[in-house]
């Protein structure tokens, strides 16, 4: 055990953790909206809209995240047309490519989580809202969405943790996130176990915090108060 290496690599790894957290928070933020959007499309009665939303979630859940990042980072730049538009400003940056890929990926999972949450809402609650003369829009925003979010908290907590692990793939497109820096230190010092303990410890710490925050929220917004 090389404890010196563990101590000297800690600040570098903690610095890289900031990149990981930035990637995570940005993709979760955009992914939540995307997921909510596609979940509402899934509830739409129009079969084409419905199938479109299903296709989106099927494709992004059925392929590895690595393929998605590679298509966006290496693949899209190949199209001449994109290089001429303003999109190229975003797509030439690995940072934004990673965020786009993560957002699309987590959006697909989130849409499934939210859809099942919407479907488990008892019809009686919506009917109660209707009979009180509340408009459909208000029922959706003020009754269905809050209940669905509460219902999906445990599953969404898992999704946050999966996404946190997913951000490690940013290292494959040259971003120096926690895993990227860990790999760099491993390949220069050839001490994989020490670096794994420190980097893994940081990841576990983040998992621990996410887990407990979700647990707290679940308790806070539980139905029996």
């Amino acid at each position, binding site marked *: 055990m090389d404890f010196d290496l563990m101590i000297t690599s800690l600040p570098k790894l903690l610095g890289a953790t900031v990149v990981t957290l930035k990637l995570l928070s940005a993709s979760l933020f955009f992914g939540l909206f995307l997921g909510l959007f596609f979940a509402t499309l899934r509830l739409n009665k129009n079969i084409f809209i419905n199938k479109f939303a299903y296709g989106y979630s099927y494709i992004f859940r*059925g392929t590895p995240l690595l*393929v998605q990042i590679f298509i966006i980072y290496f693949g899209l730049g190949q199209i001449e047309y994109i290089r001429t538009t303003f999109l190229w400003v975003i797509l030439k940056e690995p940072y934004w490519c990673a965020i786009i890929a993560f957002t699309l990926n987590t959006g697909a999972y989130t849409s499934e989580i939210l859809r099942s949450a919407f479907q488990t809402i008892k019809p009686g609650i919506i009917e109660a809202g209707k009979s009180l003369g509340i408009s459909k829009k208000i029922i959706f925003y003020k009754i269905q969405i809050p209940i669905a979010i509460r219902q999906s908290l445990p599953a969404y907590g898992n999704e946050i*943790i999966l996404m946190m*692990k997913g951000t490690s793939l940013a290292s494959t497109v040259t971003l120096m996130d926690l895993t990227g820096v860990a*790999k760099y230190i491993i390949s220069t010092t050839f001490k994989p176990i020490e670096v*794994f303990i420190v980097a893994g410890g940081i990841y576990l710490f983040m998992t621990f915090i996410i887990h407990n925050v979700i647990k707290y929220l679940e308790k806070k917004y539980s139905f029996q108060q």
Partner: protein
Amino acid sequence: MELLAFGKTGWGDELFYATLMTIAVSITAILVGFVFALIFTPLKLSKYKTLNLVGNFYTTVIRGVPELLVIYLFFFGGSGAIMYVASIFGYYEYIEINAFITGSMAIGIISGAYSTEVFRGAIQSIDKGQFEAAKVLGINKFGQFYKIILPQMLRLAIPNLSNVWQITLKDTSLISVTGLVEIMRQSYIAAGSTRDPLFFYSFAAVLYLLLTYISMKLINKLEARYSRGY
């Protein structure tokens, strides 16, 4: 389309073999995972606190750390660890483990953590009366588990195991960083030499979709078979 031709002109046969490699790694990995699950599930269900701790440590660490980091640990640390063990027995030559073994071990340990959780959940949801009835009938321990608990457990576990399989299948794409030529690595090579990454990565995505679709169909059949009594 000529890019996908079989033979020397296209990448069809290379990608075909790469797909077989992905399937082989996934199956090896999930079997390795089952072995790990068979070891750690009893630990998690044990009466003894220390054994519980060991089981929980395994599932928590593996499920809380990115797959890529575990793969790097195995990739850079694997041969070192084997050589260390070998040196105890007096063998000091350089040992290199091939990428297939490193990869399927790494993915296997990851999928084992998920399988452990699935098995634990399935065993815990079997009615206590079943265990007691088996004991009362005087069936030996092996028969209790093999003939009574396992069939009921499988029915409950298969839907979740199908998720584990999907996760494992997708995780194998990460082994490409170690240089094992599976779908992802082959697409990377093909994309590099033809300068057509969009096509090859999209094709890789299609291959993965096909694999997940086919395995879904097969698992559904298996599920129907194990729940025929219900």
